[in-house]
């Protein structure tokens, strides 16, 4: 029995299998995150909605009423108070609406914050069209400053029929978290 090196057939199969393992690592680590992002952009799966202003023509469908629920959360219990002015509103698809969220910097120092949205159910996220939203940019606050943050939106008439409630949730972050992207 030749002791030291394994036969060539073993070596080549081993090489191929190691290559498979490396390829699967690359698939997971390198390929998947951008693929997931593209997939979410196309399908709205991530529930983010549009992240820059969009222009949509109004075409109100008065026969249908959709309930919009607002949820506001502060990340990591930061020194902010952040809440919607109204907890929910009932809207007609195709019509433009305004809503505001109130944010207060509870600390004495100047801070910059930014909201990150999430829309549920995910199937609604592409149909919740933000014409203008405070979540597109960050907000600079002086110490103890309070501010109303505006949101302007249209629910697309293409919204699937079985959706009668859309939840729009914002989490308010210190902007240094947000700029890490």
């Amino acid at each position: 029995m030749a002791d030291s090196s394994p036969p060539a057939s073993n070596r080549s199969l081993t090489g191929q299998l190691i290559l498979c393992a490396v390829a699967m690592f690359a698939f997971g680590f390198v390929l998947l995150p951008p693929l997931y992002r593209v997939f979410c952009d196309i399908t709205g799966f991530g529930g983010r909605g549009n992240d820059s202003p969009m222009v949509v023509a109004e075409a109100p469908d008065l026969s249908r009423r959709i309930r919009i629920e607002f949820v506001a959360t502060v990340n990591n219990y930061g020194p902010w108070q952040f809440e919607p002015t109204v907890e929910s509103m009932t809207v007609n698809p195709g019509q433009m609406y305004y809503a505001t969220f109130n944010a207060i910097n509870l600390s004495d120092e100047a801070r910059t914050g930014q909201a990150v949205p999430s829309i549920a159910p995910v199937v609604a996220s592409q149909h919740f069209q933000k014409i203008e939203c405070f979540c597109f940019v960050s907000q600079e606050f002086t110490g103890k400053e309070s501010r109303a943050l505006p949101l302007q939106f249209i629910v697309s008439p293409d919204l699937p029929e079985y959706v009668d409630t859309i939840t729009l949730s914002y989490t308010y972050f210190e902007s240094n978290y947000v700029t890490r992207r």
Partner: protein
Amino acid sequence: MADHGPAKGFTRWLYTTNHKDIGTMYLIFSLTMFFIGGSMALVIRSELMTPGLQFVHPEFFNQMTTMHALIMVFGAVMPAFVGLANWMIPLMIGAPDMALPRMNNWSFWILPVAFGILLSTLLMDGGAPAGGWTMYPPLVLQTGDAFPFLIFSVHLMGISSIMGAINIIVSILNMRAPDMWLLKMPMFVWTWLITAYLLIAVMPVLAGAVTMLLTDQFFGTSFFLAAGGGDPVMFQHIFWFFGHPEVYIMILPAFGVVSEIIPTFARKPLFGHDSMVYAASCIAFLSFIVWAHHMFTVGMPLSGQLFFMFATMLIAVPTGVKIFNWVATMWGGAMTFETPMLFSLAFVFLFTIGGFSGVMLAIVPADIQYHDTYFVVAHFHYVLVPGSIFGLFAACYYWLPKWTGHMYNETAGKLHFWASTIFVNLTFFPMHFLGLAGMPRRIPDYSTQFADFNTMASIGAIGFGLSQLIFVYVLLTVKKGAKATDRVWEAPRGLEWTVPSPAPYHTFDTPPVKRVTQESFQ
């Protein structure tokens, strides 16, 4: 090379490249981990014996649930099957050793290091990981000093598994006896071949996912941080892309084990050997397209839920083929009920219960109710304890005479079986009811309405834990048993029974010729 025996002293074990030595070390290591992970389970069950907080802090309770799972999955079940593969695959295919003996030594000795690191986190500032073995961000990022050690130990376990899997595939594909073509391979070899491919496909994906956690925590990336444009749900997708094949990695070799044992004690060839091979391959393929059934509640389009629900239910078909084949093997057979057969029969029966609750969990509207309740805990413990672990016990009793040259104490073996079977059901069956009534998992305290079933489960767990000491007794006293014959059982099939008992240090130095056909399973 002739008559070259094992080296003396501790370095024999440190430097060994012998598949039997390495198999033994794997098995002893996993038994040790089984007891460590089991003690953690007993901490959990003691705390849950009655409502209220009695023994441990909630933080420590969470560390116990997390560590119990990590140790049992990566430290007990997986290495035990790799140990069996090391011992038995060369003997079953008529090879002198594994194809890559030096790498074999490495893949074992990485494990004690990995688990040394993981266990050391119990002593660190902030305690051991407590965010669940699934390591979901952002919760897992709140782990204290233990966090990088958790990631590094998972990397090491993954590297060990991948090296073991590569070794097994190369051994099986390149080193079979000359007249053993692929469909003549014993089922245990087949299921391990499929398992090894699963390991190579998914362990690197887990490594990728935990590496992303590491870079999110320390290097300013935002793979999973919503604030930075990432998505925590993406971790769940990647994790379960690994996690679902992982559950088949833990069960397929057990399928192989019972497919060896039932024919021996039914005194009939395995019914439908080839259909078993195709069924196992189907299960392996389907395991890659069902991952999202672990996360029906994260918010998924209806079409996605339907796809994953039906794909998951489809797995019941090849699994059913296997169950019915085992039953058909026994049908009309001259059965006897030695300990390995008892464990195999309990495996078939109790694993099926776990399979059924799995089909229940696959139903989307039901799963939204069952998600993260004790029903899930009952389900996966039924497939892992009376499934994988009973498969391992069956294998140990079946091949112990071949390994040691002595028959084990049959009375103690049967006692071990009956105690384990009764207590495992007492532990996990009430959890179905707890889950259906809405008791959430991973919580140290509960509403008083859940009290009685929890007390039953805790008594069962303590009984099950103590029953395992009988197994240790069997192992320690095996050398006192009667000498085993070469064939050990009345009519076993397979090349491993053509070598003496105990199996000599070196076997099949020359490949067995024309013996495979006589030993064929078909």
